[in-house]
């Protein structure tokens, strides 16, 4: 069983916490000048997505999680699973709804996603930070508006709804930040 000591703690480290794989979000070393050292850690459970705080006495160890991040190309959805392919080995695998979660609304065929695998099974699917998607429905706006203030809802080809400036029209392709869900620009 691989383990990590508190000295190895850093953001992004994958560990086992209460039987679930988890990722360290933030690690803070605290120590009174003449006292006991602790590591105060914010840690995200990768199955539930919940972030909690944990404290370790410096020098304690924690079990490593057999978790790897892989870049894979999204192929298609069969109604139940999302299918991905490793662009180098052509190996394919399927992720379920738990792994994809709300990110389903950004998933477009051919886009390269980050798949977090735990013991070989997809745990989390992260779309690219920026996606380029076509607008399938939005109200006609005023052509003169270029301020970007206000805006209107637009439904994208993947089903996501984002606010876009009034000058953006049906059928246009736009760039969206998937982390914030915000419109960036015309593509």
């Amino acid at each position: 069983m691989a383990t990590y000591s508190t000295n190895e703690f850093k953001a992004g480290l994958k560990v086992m916490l209460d039987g679930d794989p988890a990722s360290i979000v933030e690690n803070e070393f605290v120590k009174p000048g003449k006292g006991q050292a602790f590591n105060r850690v914010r840690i995200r459970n990768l199955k539930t997505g919940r972030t909690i705080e944990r404290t370790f006495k410096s020098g304690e160890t924690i079990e490593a999680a057999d978790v790897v991040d892989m870049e894979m190309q999204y192929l298609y959805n069969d109604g139940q699973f999302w299918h991905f392919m490793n662009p180098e080995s052509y190996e394919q695998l399927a992720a379920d709804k738990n792994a994809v979660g709300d990110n389903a609304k950004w998933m477009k065929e051919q886009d390269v996603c980050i798949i977090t695998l735990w013991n070989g099974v997809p745990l989390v699917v992260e779309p690219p930070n920026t996606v380029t998607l076509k607008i399938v429905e939005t109200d006609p706006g005023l052509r003169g508006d270029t301020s970007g203030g206000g805006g209107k809802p637009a439904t994208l080809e993947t089903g996501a709804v984002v606010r876009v400036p009034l000058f953006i029209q049906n059928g246009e392709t736009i760039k969206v930040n998937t982390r914030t869900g915000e419109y960036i620009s015309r593509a």
Partner: protein
Amino acid sequence: MLSDGSGDWQPTAALDILKLRARILERIRAFFFERGVLEVETPILSSAATTDPALASLSTRYTGPLFPHGQTLYLHTSPEFPMKRLLAAGAGSIYQICKVFRDGESGRLHNPEFTMLEWYRVGFDHHRLMDETGELVMQLLASSLSLQAPEKLTYREAFIRHAGLDPHRATAEEFARAARDHHIDVPRRLRGHDDLAAWRDLLLTHLVEPGLGQGRLTFIHDYPAAQASLARVQPGDPPLAARFELYLNGVELANGFHELADANEQRTRFERQLHARTVAGLSAVPMDAHLLAALTHGMPDCAGVALGIDRLVMLAAGARSIAEVIPFPIDRA
């Protein structure tokens, strides 16, 4: 190592902050010059090390004339022992600004080497030294922060105010309950253990410290005798250590003592700490025989304090981490 093309050669501190740092050092020297306190320098390398189980010394090796077969030397964690030898030799009140070294300490408020101001005042007790420390720090921060007059709290008062318990009387179960009540996660290695010093440190770091020094300097004094370090212990129930710490914005800035001057008591504490190191599986280190000899000779009644310059600059600059006030932290050293 060849360049990897990254920006790691660059300082992590802005040049404006380095200028502020230089001004602060200048003003510290002026403060002590005006008060007739002598600047001294003592060796960074020592054949002895601190025995404190909470401190880990780095070590190196000298080989050459005097030591043809090599000699292990420890990098000091504070200049305390040689400065006390100077006091015993009759130097009078003295100060030093130097780099000190601590293994295992790196983080937002820690770097394994950092700059310490340490000074000793002959004839002062810890209360008079707290007052002087307050004057110095208020002067140094005057142009950066507007602070109310400093406050003094006993260690007990600070715990009652911020953790709701008496740190001298509480049992491990009571510390555990206070942690639970304040949603503090208890480390696995502390659960079910009655290491009271570790319980106090857990609540101190997680609950008490964040509330200290808000808008004013807070001095904490009268520590549990078990955490006396090198302070005198005043007998009583409970016995209290004549030790103090200074906090601002929840950050520990300084640690001071009414200095233990009794050579026998000092030897007993060294031996107790060496035993605690063995129990904790830490390396055995040589105790400082020169210090014991100096105390046997006689050290004048005095109080001493060590103040972290990097953290002081951080607070003056409004910085969040020590890397913002030192040019090259350990990962760029």
